[in-house]
């Protein structure tokens, strides 16, 4: 069964550094998402992406965050200048086109981001 893959599984970065988290969505999916889960807290929506542009973003997704689909297969999340509070598990998800959005989202195994 096709799956969403995320790399790296664990990223350790110094505060203030830029970090790029990578995701390869399922090949025929057209909607892409990033979520994050701070340790011990709920999974939170960051951003959705469709047709090469952001379709919706949360308050968390400020100017320090950006997303890109650079080559038709990868979907990346960049944090420009990381803060301690960016430490979390970041999940990528994708879904197929469906009537009224009835296709479920498929998640990767996540990237654990640790900011020192």
């Amino acid at each position, binding site marked *: 069964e096709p799956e969403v893959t995320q790399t790296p599984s664990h990223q350790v970065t110094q505060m203030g550094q830029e970090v790029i988290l990578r995701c390869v969505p399922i090949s025929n999916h057209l909607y892409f998402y990033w979520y994050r889960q701070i340790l011990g807290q709920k999974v939170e929506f960051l951003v959705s992406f*469709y047709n090469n542009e952001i379709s919706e973003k949360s308050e968390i997704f400020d100017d320090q965050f950006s997303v890109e689909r650079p080559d038709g297969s990868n979907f990346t999340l960049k944090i420009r200048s990381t803060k301690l509070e960016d430490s979390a598990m970041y999940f990528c998800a994708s879904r197929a086109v469906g009537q009224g959005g*009835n296709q*479920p989202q498929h*998640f990767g195994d996540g990237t654990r981001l640790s900011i020192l």
Partner: protein
Amino acid sequence: AQSVTQLDSQVPVFEEAPVELRCNYSSSVSVYLFWYVQYPNQGLQLLLKYLSGSTLVKGINGFEAEFNKSQTSFHLRKPSVHISDTAEYFCAVSDSAGGYNKLIFGAGTRLAVHP
């Protein structure tokens, strides 16, 4: 705006006993409802979904859930649990009318199955 409340943060249960994990949601629009499971050090795996039609939906691994519109609930049940069901379970909703359908998650329920 939607919100999801999972009433129990932890549910301990003995192997082969039945279990119910509770989920209530709040929304001003029609929603789709989902249950995801997260095993240690893994991502979120879809257990089951409610889109429309029959209010009782069956998922993988013997789980089922019942949508109750009047009580705005979507409780997850399994008649007999196994040790391997030990995991974190997340209830989630999305707006059925919108095209982009972000998921709003509950805080999760940790199911601990004991021998």
